[in-house]
């Protein structure tokens, strides 16, 4: 039970970082912390007591395996997270070229 609570605390740490940090790069890194905490949560869900890694070998036919479905979901979510982070980084680089600053309090052109 304590491990699930630790995943949730890591999620809240990432959320705190997104809300209170001023530097654009730190916001992007906090988003990465949030997504990693969710991957840990998924990997913890599929645990079965006394199970082995889910790779079938023909030597031992009857064997207790851990649940492989959350692991497949985590692989897909890692790819999606990679795409999101790379697009965010490209936009941050172009913002730096236009605004000449990384401070988010200076980037307030759109208002109202």
């Amino acid at each position, binding site marked *: 039970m304590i491990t699930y609570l630790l995943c949730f605390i890591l*999620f809240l740490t990432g*959320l705190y970082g*997104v809300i209170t940090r001023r530097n*654009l790069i730190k*916001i992007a890194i906090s*988003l990465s912390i*949030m*997504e990693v905490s*969710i991957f840990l*949560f*998924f990997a913890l*869900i599929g645990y079965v007591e006394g199970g082995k890694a889910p790779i079938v070998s023909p030597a031992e036919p009857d064997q207790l395996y851990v649940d492989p*479905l*959350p692991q497949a*979901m985590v692989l*897909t*979510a890692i790819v*999606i997270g990679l*795409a*999101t982070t790379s*697009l*965010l980084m490209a*936009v*941050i680089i*172009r*913002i730096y070229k*236009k*605004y000449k600053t990384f401070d988010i309090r200076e*980037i307030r*052109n*759109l208002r*109202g």
Partner: protein
Amino acid sequence: MNPVIPILVIVPLASAFLTMVLGRLIRNLPKYFTSVVMLFLVIASFYALIKTGTGLSVYKVGGWEPINNIPVGIYMVLDGYSAIMLCIISTIGFLSAVYSISYINRYTGENYFYALFCLMVAGMNGVVLSGDLFNIFVFLEISVISSYALVAFGVEKNELEASFKYQVLGAIASFLILFGIGLIYWKTKTLNLADIRETFKAGYDKTYYIFVQLLILSGFGLKAAIMPFHAWLPDAHSSAPSPISAMLSGVFIKAVGIYVTIRLFFNMFVISEHVAILITSLGMLSMVLGVFLAIGQWDIKRLLAYHSISQMGYVILAAGAGMILISRGEKPEIAALAIAGGLYHLINHAAFKGLLFLNAGAIEYTLGTRNLKEMGGLSAHMPVTSATSFIASMSISGIPPFNGFFSKLIIIIACVQARFYLLAILAVIVSIVTLASFLKLQRYAFYNKTRHKEDHPIREVPRPMLFSMIILGILCFLLSLLAFPSLRESILQPAVDILMNADTYRSKIIGM
């Protein structure tokens, strides 16, 4: 197994990559190829709408048959509600693609625009057609990432800032949704929508259940721009290029926000009264605050974006009223009327909001400005634009005989019959304030004395843009015919039946 279902997802996905490969060899190919592909999608989705009727078709990806009546594998489901959304997506997509033949000439890198456009449409089709919880998430991410890149397409200061805000808020929403999916999987050990319903009916833990519902509501509410989560919408919709604004505001927040919320809360979760009251009050809040924030705007696209929030509040209000009645277990025919009104307003809003954004794009193409204080007297020089803008403004304010009047009438009648008098009065007040706001837009943009600088002559916009605007104007007339009972029975009633009788949904899928 219906073979039309995977075609609707695979064709735009393949054409996105095909335009990138062939765009280097042949010069003008991507523009016309995208329009042809979207026309094919229009024909396919109308065929699916006519063939489905009141039935439901299931497509099992990979051919995995259920074992002991437990669904194994990913299901794709096509029923009445999905067919309506498919028709909206492909029609507005086709008209935006034709509009952008002449609008995107100003930007560099045209091939990327059409590839991202096709990817966005493929993602939205996948969300609408999937019957599996994680599949919804994957296709949602495909279309959302394409829209991040499309909002930042012309790389100026405003657009990059708007895209950054949109990306951070959208990423937080995606993580909340993923967290909710993980919690659902932990308790039910399955990902199929019908199967989750069966597990929930057997028995559940109340606190856990409400926590999961709040997470899913927050995540998808952020994508649909319901009131406490609306902060990204005015910046993103006003800074994007105009055909993308029409697609985003007219189709995207419906297909990935409101469609999934209504589908999950009616067909997957067992509705409790507290959550239904929460959803209705969120709808009421967005309706009222959206229109009052919209009156003081002087930027034409920001004004339209705030009105999008308000009109989406109408749809959520109607769905919430239906949910309250279902959870109390009384008067199912009034709940059916409320949900039918909400869906009809969804269809209408796609038509007239798309037309309004295309008009704003035409004004920006000719004049180069978006500020209402710098325009004026355009009706003499741009007759088609001003006529279609007049039709769309009358539709959104709810003036008969245009289509907005009928859908708002159905929602107000349903609220009065269910004795929610406060909601009906607020709906009428918001409609009047919307009329005031659009009269201001019409006066300042078209009918005043000219205020802009006289350096270049004002002509009418090129012909592909005119084609899209005229077709949408005709649609605004034709959609008012859906209020007649015979057409309403055949098109809207199957969708409402599937949503209200969740047990029918579940038994048909598990039986197949």
